[in-house]
C-alpha cells in the first residue's frame, strides 16, 4: 500500500527544468532516502509533494487520494510534515512555543505540553526549552526543526537535509531517532551524509538533473555504476 505516489510530476522555473516527469512511489512505513547532487531538484520535488511549490504538471496522491489541488496547510492536516532545509524556526519565540505551534494543530490542553516536552526530549533539546529559538546554535536549530516535525506526529515525515550542520554525536542520535520512528512513521529523508543513508534507509532513490536515475536498497545504490558516476563522483 502506497502512502505517497507522484505521476509525471514536473516543475520548471522560468524555463529551467528543475524536476522532470517524476513517478515516485513510497510504501507505508518505509524509510526512504532521496539523494542526488546539489541542484538535482530534491527540495523542489518534496516542495511539490507537500504543497509549498505548485507543479508545472503532474499529480500527487497521498493515502489513496489525489491531493494535487490541495493547499499546503490542508496536506499537512492530512498527516504530512515537512522540515525545512533552510532552517525556518520562529527566531523570536521560545523553543517551547515553536514546538507548541506544531502540536496545537492536532492537540489541546495539557496534551500540548506533554507533546512538546516529548518532542524536545527526543531530539535532546530539553535544556534549551526556554531559550528563544534564535539564540540556539545552528545545529540546535536543525534539531528544533525536527522536533517541530515530530510534534505533529505525522504519517509521512519529510526531512530536508536534517543532519546538515549537526555534530558527530548529534548525527548518531539522529540515526537512533529515525530507527525509533521507522515502522510507525513513513519517512522521506533527503540526505547527503552517506553513512546516515546506509544505516537508516530501507531504500534509496537517486535524483539527477530532475529525473529519477536509480532506486534500490542502500547496498545496491552504493554499487550502482551510474549512480557513482553521477553522484558519488567515483565512476
Amino acid at each position, binding site marked *: 500500500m502506497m502512502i505517497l505516489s507522484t505521476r509525471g510530476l514536473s516543475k520548471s522555473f522560468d524555463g529551467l527544468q528543475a524536476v522532470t516527469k517524476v513517478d515516485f512511489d513510497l510504501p507505508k512505513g518505509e524509510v526512504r532516502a532521496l539523494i542526488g547532487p546539489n541542484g538535482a531538484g530534491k527540495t523542489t520535488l518534496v516542495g511539490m509533494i*507537500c504543497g509549498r511549490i505548485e507543479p508545472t504538471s503532474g499529480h500527487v496522491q497521498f493515502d489513496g487520494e489525489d491531493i494535487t489541488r490541495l493547499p499546503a496547510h490542508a496536506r499537512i492536516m492530512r498527516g504530512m510534515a515537512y522540515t*525545512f532545509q533552510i532552517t525556518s*524556526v520562529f*527566531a523570536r519565540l521560545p523553543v517551547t512555543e515553536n514546538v507548541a*505551534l*506544531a502540536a496545537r494543530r492536532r492537540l489541546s490542553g495539557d496534551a500540548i505540553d506533554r507533546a512538546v516536552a516529548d518532542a524536545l526530549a527526543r531530539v535532546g533539546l530539553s535544556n534549551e526549552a526556554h531559550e528563544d529559538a534564535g539564540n540556539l546554535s545552528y545545529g540546535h536549530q536543525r534539531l528544533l526543526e525536527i522536533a517541530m516535525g515530530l510534534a505533529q506526529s505525522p504519517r509521512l515525515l519529510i526531512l530536508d537535509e536534517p543532519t546538515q550542520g549537526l555534530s558527530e554525536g548529534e548525527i548518531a542520535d539522529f540515526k537512533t531517532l529515525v530507527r525509533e520512528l521507522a515502522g510507525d512513521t513513513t519517512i522521506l529523508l533527503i540526505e547527503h551524509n552517506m553513512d546516515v543513508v546506509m544505516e537508516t534507509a530501507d531504500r534509496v532513490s537517486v535524483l539527477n538533473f530532475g529525473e529519477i536515475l536509480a532506486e534500490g536498497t542502500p547496498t545496491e545504490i552504493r554499487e550502482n555504476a551510474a549512480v557513482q558516476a553521477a553522484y558519488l563522483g567515483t565512476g
Partner: protein
Amino acid sequence: MTASSRVIVLHLGLLALLFGLQFILPAYHHGNLARIMVLASYAVGYNILFGYTGLLSLGHALFFAAGMYGMGLTIQHMGFTPAPALIVGIVAGAFVAGALALLALRTVGVSFMIVTLMFAQAGYLTVLYFGEYTRGDEGFVIQQAQRVLWGVDLSNATNRYFAAWGLFSVSFGLSLWLVRSSFGRTLIAIRENEERVRMLGYDTYKHKLTAMIISGTISAAAGAFYGLLFGYAGASFASVQYSIFPLLWVLLGGAGTVLGPFVGTLFMFYLIDLSSGITSAYLLIAGLALVLLTLFAPQGLIGEIRRRFWKNLP
C-alpha cells in the same frame, strides 16, 4: 505569584487605575482622559492587525469612520436611539473590514499598505460625495437629546468618562485575552514567519482575515463611541491623518504589546497638548520627541520595558 497572574494583575491594575482616576482628576484632564481612552481603543484595534499579525494597514480610518457614520447617520437621519445606532456602526465596521480584507489580503507588504490606503481614501471621498447627508468636511453635531443611552446622558462628563472607560476595558480585555489564546499565538507566529505557520498546517489566510475583521470591528466601535460621546461626526475622521494616528500611537507605545496602544496614545496626546501650550511650533517639538524616541526606544515605550525587564509581557 505565577508569571501569568502577574500579567493579569498588571493589566487589570491599569483598568482599576483609570476607573479610580475619574474621582481625583481636575476637569480638564478628566475630559482628556475620556478622549484618550476612546482613541486608545482605536489603537488597540489597530495593534491587533499591525502589532500582532504584522500587517501594516494605512486605511484604518475607513473602519473608524464606518463606525462613526454608521452610528451618526442612523441617529441623524433615521431617528435611531444610541444603542441600536452603536450596533449599526460596529456592524458596518465589521462588514467594511471583511470586504477590504478580501481584497487587500491578496497582496502583501507595500502593496497591502497601498491597497488599504486607496480604499480608505475612496471612503473619505464617499463621505464628501454624499455631503447632503454627511455635511462633508463641516460635519454634523449630534444633539444632547440624541445622546441619551438607556436614560444616561452621555454629554455629561462623568457619564462620558464611564462610557469611555467601559469601551476601553472591553477592547483592552479582549486584546489581552486574544493574544494569549491559541488563535492569537498563531497570529504572532504569522507575523514572525508566515510560511512556516502554513507548513505547520494552519490556514494563514483565514487567520489574517479574522484578525483584520476583529481589528476593524474594534476600530469601528471606537469611531462610533467617539462620535456619540463627543457629539460630532465629520469627514476629517475619515482622512488619511486618522489612518496614520493609530500607527504612530502603537509605534510609540510598543507594537505587539497589550499596554502599548494606551501608553502611546496617552503620550502623544499630552506631548501635543503640552508643547502647544509652549509654542505655536508645537508640531516641531512633538516631531523631535518622536525622533528621539525612535532612536532610543525603537520598540516603543512598553516594547522597551519588555526587552529590558519583563520578557513575558504579552
